[in-house]
């Protein structure tokens, strides 16, 4: 049997004001990050409903990362503070249900941190790749 390396699908929710611009900057500076990362732009990290995260896994994501402005820098003053609590609770719950904790992450990336964006994504993809396919939170109907 030939072992081919599993290519993970990563969904990154990026806030419009910082992280999405950060991703843009990474691109402009020709900093690499894996093409397996699919970015979904959201107005603010707190726009990410827990349902979005679960739906991403359902539709085939192997890892979900949420990127927002650094605490204190939210375009809407406090959105990322709320997101921080919500996602902490959600990810802790996923962990509690036995979903590998490395599949979820929250990272603060500013518009000036193209390098951090690229490094974060590289690191995240690497960790998720190691875990292999998302088996514990998959919807088989979407995998046919």
């Amino acid at each position, binding site marked *: 049997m030939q072992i081919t390396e599993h290519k993970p699908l990563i969904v990154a929710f990026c806030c419009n004001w910082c992280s999405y611009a950060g991703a843009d900057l990474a691109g402009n500076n020709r900093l690499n990050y894996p093409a397996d990362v699919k970015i979904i732009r959201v107005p603010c990290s707190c726009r990410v409903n827990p349902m979005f995260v679960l739906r991403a896994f359902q*539709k*085939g994501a192997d890892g979900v990362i949420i990127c927002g402005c650094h605490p204190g820098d939210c375009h809407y003053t406090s959105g990322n503070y709320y997101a921080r609590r919500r996602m902490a609770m959600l990810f802790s719950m996923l962990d509690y249900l036995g979903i590998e904790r490395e599949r979820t992450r929250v990272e603060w990336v500013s518009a000036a941190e193209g390098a951090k964006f690229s490094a974060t994504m590289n690191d995240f993809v690497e960790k998720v790749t190691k875990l292999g396919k998302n088996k514990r939170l998959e*919807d088989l*109907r*979407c995998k*046919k």
Partner: protein
Amino acid sequence: MRKCSLSAINSIFEEIAKNTMLFLPVDNKDGKAEYKKWQEGFLLSEKLNTVKSPKEFLFPQTENLMEFKTSGKNIEIIDTRTAKEDFVVFGVRACDAKAFDILDKVFLTEPRDSYYASCREHGTIITLACNKPSETCFCSAFGIDPANPMGDVSAWKTENEMFFEANTEKGEKFIELIKNLTEKTDNKEVKKQKEKISNIMKKLPLANLSTEKFGGGKTKELFDAPEWAELSSTCLGCGTCTFVCPTCQCYDIKDFNTGKGVIRFRCWDSCMYSNFTLMAHGNNRNSQKERFRQRFMHKLVYFPENNDGTFGCVGCGRCLSRCPISMNIVKVMKKLGGKTND
């Protein structure tokens, strides 16, 4: 009639499982009975009945109907029906066996439901008489005798033996299959067992539940009864009663977009749900009272009206023990049925 000793029952299961899938009630971790696919070491549950009814063998909670592939403006319909495998359900109680007849009346009348029909065709139902009916049982109100369960094969358990009698062609085949593991016998022992059961039945607290006030043609008398308001006043509107019910057969058809196509599936639905009859321009059953009334009127009036007097309830007692607020068909029947006696 054939019999075997209880100690041989596992070898019978083994024999059946060699040929087909065998499902039977076994005790689960919660200490309740649940239908499971038999495997080595599984013991037939001693419990009176399972929490979930065996209707899911014929009418699964979720069942894919077909798939669609779309490209541009075009649609391709894919018939995903496949040939079903044969299966045996062992240890079905008299009430649940009767519930299959009720489901048949719905799904097998024209136009026949091919999904249900194919499950029905491939399933052999082995019933088992209830040696210890419980206080929540009221099957006798609907003319069901727990000592004489129907199905393809009827079985009785005595202290040391199990007896089998075929009722249908499928049943004969089953008896043939276990011929070498059983021996021919007369029905003396079974008769004794039946007597024991009917003695218990007479003593049950719900033994005298009357259906006199219900049945086809009673819509006008019962529909506007003031009792519906108070009976339904604390109903939560959950689907517990409908989903544990062996005869509830309402379903919804829904589409699921997998990203690569669309799966159209049907799933159990409940008339207790607020969106059951919700349309874009309104809902004809707007309050829980109307939805509650629908469930019981359907079982006690509408269904018998359309099916020669057969009630849509078999008295299995599941709703009595599972409703989170202990509202159930017995309370409804007593309240509405007792009305004119006062």
